């Protein structure tokens, strides 16, 4: 037959095939990770919950039935209604739909969680690398400051900070970020310290690699797994801490749809209007549960040595 029966191979396909060939071993590892991860029910539940809540973050404004209820509208004639077909989670004391507010609350919580964890990483990872690689007095100073911060329960310290700055969502984020970074310093410092004396780092140094190259090509790539695991866990914990500040009355202020603040107000309407506090609480529980299970699952595949822990 003529050559026409073979359709011409598109250049994209060729490029893809070449890329797959080049990254063959990496792809294999990835497939193994995916396989191991999908074998664990709890990891998959965690992933499912996190994806569900990310979906709510992105699609929230379009899927909720009463989007204006998150911005302080008032419908007193339908206040404190029990869950029904129109209002799945019932309504609150000004007649706002609690389902709407819980769903839109995911945005608030995820924003807080992402910002807090990002700032903590941006501050903590470089400091950890500096402390781990430099040694000497610089390391002492960084680690002692870290120790002091870690010697107070974070929630109490952030409570004190918000007490000075005044209540509000931005101050709560600032306070939480300020107490969150030391965890990353300690994690990265110990990792960098042990990597520093690895043969491959010595070898890189021997062939003349500079400090930046060693940090970016040898130290950081080996720190990714623990950072990913801790980041996932911390997303849940930061969301929980933000909700705690909201519950105390120092975080997001009403009518902002924040879960902790909703529980706090709903508390005044217990026990008769039980749905008010119940549903935001379930949302917090499922979010934190999701991130914890996901973090656990990631640890199992990325860091199998600590598997049983």
């Amino acid at each position, binding site marked *: 037959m003529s050559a026409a029966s073979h359709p011409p191979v598109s250049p994209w396909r060729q490029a893809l095939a070449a890329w797959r060939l080049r990254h063959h071993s990496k792809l294999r590892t990835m497939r193994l990770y995916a396989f191991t991860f999908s074998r664990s029910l709890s990891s998959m539940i965690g992933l499912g919950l996190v994806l569900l809540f990310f979906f709510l973050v992105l699609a929230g404004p379009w899927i909720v039935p009463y989007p204006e209820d998150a911005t302080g509208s008032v419908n007193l004639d339908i206040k404190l209604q029990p869950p029904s077909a129109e209002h799945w989670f019932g309504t609150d004391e000004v007649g706002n739909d609690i389902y709407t507010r819980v769903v839109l609350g995911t945005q608030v919580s995820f924003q807080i969680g992402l910002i807090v964890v990002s700032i903590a990483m941006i501050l903590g990872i470089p400091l950890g690398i500096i402390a781990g690689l430099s040694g000497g007095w610089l390391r002492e100073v960084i680690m002692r400051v870290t120790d002091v911060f870690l010697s107070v329960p974070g929630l109490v310290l952030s409570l004190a900070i918000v007490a000075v700055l005044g209540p509000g969502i931005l101050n709560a984020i600032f306070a939480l970020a300020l107490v969150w970074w030391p965890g990353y310093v300690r994690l990265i410092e110990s990792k960098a310290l042990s990597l520093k004396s690895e043969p491959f780092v010595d070898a890189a140094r021997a062939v003349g690699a500079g400090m930046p190259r060693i940090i970016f090509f040898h130290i950081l790539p080996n720190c990714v797994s623990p950072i990913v695991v801790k980041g996932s866990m911390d997303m849940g914990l930061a969301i929980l801490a933000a909700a705690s500040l909201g519950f105390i009355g120092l975080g997001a202020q009403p009518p902002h749809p924040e879960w902790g603040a909703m529980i706090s107000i709903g508390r005044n309407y217990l026990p008769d209007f039980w749905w008010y506090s*119940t549903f935001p*609480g379930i949302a917090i529980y499922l979010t934190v549960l999701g991130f914890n299970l996901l973090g656990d699952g990631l640890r199992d595949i990325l860091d199998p040595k600590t598997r049983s822990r």
Partner: protein
Amino acid sequence: MALFVIKRVALLGLMLIGLILIMFTISHVAPGDPAGVAAGPDATAEMIEVIRKEYGLDKPLPMQFWIYLGDVFQGDLGRSIRTTHDVTDDLLRYFPATFELVGVAMLIAIFFGVPLGMLAAVFRDKGADHAIRFVSVSSVALPMFWLGLLLQLFVSLKLGWLPLGGQIGLMTERPEPITHLLLVDSLLRGQFETFREAFAHVILPAIALSAPALAAIIRVNRAEMIEVLHQDFIVTARAHGISSFRIVAIYALRNAMIPTLAMIGLRFGWMLGGTVLVEGVFDWPGVGLYAVQSAVNSDFQPVMGATLLIGFSFMLANFAIDIAYGWLDPRLREAG
């Protein structure tokens, strides 16, 4: 060993000074005027000026820190603006209640956490292990304050089994103080009815407060037990025909307990932090409720005092773990 202890004591002192420095920085360098914060929202300019003088805020910052440090080490934590009470007196009055709550919560966490961790290790990857993991992951993810509300809703209001809040009924006479711990004092004075009442009040807040520690203890104990159960001496014990129960509950547990004890010490400090959430829900008259009420009213001296107290207790707990570890493991002593 003596050198090791001295080093640790010096470190403890340095950490405490560091903590005081952080608190000082937060209150003095943070944007906003500490005198304005102290005077409250409706203070006039003269009032703020008077307070500035009274607190020594017109002096240079290092000088102020030096004075503050001296005050703290002499036990002077300033005065509350809201109540004009001495913060140290307030904290001394509220701390026993918090200590009692944390103590009971810790006992609950240990009482359930250690056996559950053990069971999970023995039945590793079986149904019981998965069920226990569900319990432990859930008790981290449940917001403590919400768990407290649920307990109030079901156990107190619906079932009517336990009181809704407070440390003891309003009408009940408190026993003459000996240790200032209500549960202990009522027992020592032989007032068993009071003890029963106080005990009924502490159960729900203690359960709510114990949840994260319970999870941590289960996890550590499970991991350690799994490790220990694979060691040679366990195999030997099995070969000798010693009963499984005895091997697990005595020989293995004893070896797994050291890291578990360290976790318990660490969790003690975190629990003190958790009281700011739980005490408010249950109207428990302790340091946590005091700190929150002060924080909400921008009454800063009590918040600083409570933070220092909780931080220092946390440091002391860690110090105790360090010393215990050094005593148990000579290698750590040499590492310093």
